[in-house]
């Protein structure tokens, strides 16, 4: 039963590696760093799983001496701590690379409500421009999104551009995203927020020219 499920799941798993909502089809440096971290951890986890299951299978033989020195200290303590130290170190290194920092990055606001988004950026004339369907960002540079909510907790997530950041009423959180090229990306609300949660999708449009011209934006609006 287990085998048949695994075989049935294989195409689904592979199909999930690309597409507009895939974290493994990164559209910028932030998401790419995280995707690499995942592939590294996946490879390690596969090796460890095989290793443990082989050890288990080898246990089904004639009785052998099993020393605490090997099993408890060697495998249980040192092996696991060594692996964990490497993973933790890699995680912290990637984390430090992608957190927002004070480097004058363009800032855009994302305001969540039940069940939709208001996105605001500074227009060419310096006045704020608000859009309810599409988040506009500049391409090829880091962008900080200031995320907040009006009612319940939502979560801002554009899988191809970065991890997620919760939109919490009464707080403003900062998330750094980056798109390599101009183009469209898909975003969604990632925190269960009630009846309309599943429909809380949005578009992201990365522009080469920033701030985007009005005409450029209206074309986008016409897009279903």
């Amino acid at each position, binding site marked *: 039963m287990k085998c048949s499920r695994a075989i049935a799941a294989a195409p689904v798993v592979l199909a999930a590696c690309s597409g507009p909502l895939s*974290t493994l089809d990164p559209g910028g440096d932030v*998401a790419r760093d*995280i995707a690499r*971290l*995942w592939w590294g*951890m996946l490879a390690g*986890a596969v090796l460890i*799983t095989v290793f*443990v*299951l082989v*050890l*288990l299978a*080898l*246990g*089904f033989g*004639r*009785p052998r*001496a*099993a020393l*605490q020195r*090997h*099993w*408890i200290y060697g495998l*249980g*303590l040192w*092996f*696991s701590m060594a692996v*964990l130290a490497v*993973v*933790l170190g*890699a*995680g*912290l290194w*990637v*984390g430090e690379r*992608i*957190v927002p920092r004070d480097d004058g990055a363009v800032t855009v606001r994302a305001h969540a409500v*039940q069940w939709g988004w208001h996105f605001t950026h500074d227009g060419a004339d310096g006045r704020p421009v608000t859009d309810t369907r599409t988040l506009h960002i500049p391409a090829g540079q880091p962008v900080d999104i200031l995320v907040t909510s009006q*009612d*319940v*907790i939502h*979560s801002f997530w554009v899988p191809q551009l*970065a*991890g*997620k*950041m*919760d939109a*919490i*009423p*009464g*707080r403003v*959180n*900062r998330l750094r995203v980056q798109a390599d090229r101009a183009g469209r990306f898909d975003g969604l609300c*990632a*925190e*269960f*927020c*009630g*009846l309309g949660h*599943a429909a809380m999708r949005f578009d992201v449009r990365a522009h080469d020219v920033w701030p985007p011209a009005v005409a450029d934006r209206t074309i986008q609006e016409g897009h279903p």
Partner: protein
Amino acid sequence: MNDTVQHDAQDLPPNAPRRALRLHRELARVWANDRGVWGQVTAVSHTTLGLRFMATAFVFFAIGGILSMLIRAQLATRQGAFLDTDLYNQIFTMHGSIMMFLFAIPMLEGLGIWLLPKLLGTRDMAFPRLTALGYWCYLFGGLIMLTALLFGVAPRDGWFMYTPLSGATYSPGINADVWLLGVTFVEISAVAAAVEITVTILRQRAPGMKLTEMPLFAWYMLGTSAMMLVGFPPLIAGSVLLEVERAFGWPFFDPLRGGDPLLWQHLFWLFGHPEVYIIFLPAAGAMSTIIPVMCRTPILGYGAIVAAILGLVFLSFGLWVHHMFTVGIPHLALAFFSAASVLVAVPTAVQVFAWIGTIWKGRPELHLPMLHILGFFLTFVMGGLTGVMLAIVPFNWQAHDTAFVTAHLHYVLIGGFVFPMMAAVTYWMPLITGKARVKGVGEAASG
């Protein structure tokens, strides 16, 4: 040889065999349940109540399982046309809540209550009436939630009940109140069980049984009950605060009036993370008991396993924030909780390798419980490794709130709880029923 015994016993007062039997019968009568239905209601015996806890938990397990099938049916339907959204929200909320609060916790309490006095060599738990109180609280809380489900007013804000969504403004109606009341009753039941499990293990061991020599299962239950005593009060407190906010408008979680929605998350996960180990430890205790028997050898590293239990108990309270990596906490603070979260894998690894070492040391036989134990290894290793991945902050930012987490927790809970419980049930069933099982049926089921 008989002569020497008689000779040595000459100085003792005579003790006629017939009198001993009568005394035994009298004692058995004192400890037995009263007759009839009323006798079942007033029962305080740990055997009766432990089994009743487990039987009731299995009923809830079946109900939760049916709900999970409805969830799968909904997800398999194009456009999710099978259930309407409101009903679907109720069903996935109830699936999680039932499995956590009405199956897993009562199941492990039942196993502990049923088994501990038998292992420790005492007649009953320290406070038999508290056992009964715990059972009735559990049943009452569970029935509140089931009734609400039948009438279509079940909780629908997710099993984690995040505020402000679960507050009065965004969840009018009694749905959320049902959760808060029902779960609080079950939590009271759990705290009652934790108190008496702790006292029973510390005070009622058979004469001469040192803490350092007691069966490992008792160490596991001691760790579990210590965690329950510290971990459950935050959720009870959180539930009371939320109910007071909902019923009387005190703004604990309302940011507009000076409250903080994250307070709920801290209280919930301060319970919710240790909860994972509260569920895992008794199951691991069953593993540490059954594996040596299946392999006909003593366990490898008794002392190391006890140290691992104590380490888990301590560490499990320092990592609840890994459920909150995306709420906007600074990276340096996240690094601390990330380190604590990967560190907790070490005691778990110690146990897994101690079990495999025991299998190497002994002569493993594939009796039915051992098949379920193999199921544990196949599932739990992957559950544990995905857990380490989720403890890594940047990856968590991507994987948090996705099916990856759902899959991880099901691997951990099915591998780390359901399979060991199946092993435990098949292992101890002859002791429960007094009968040998029908050959082949269980093997077919576990395959």
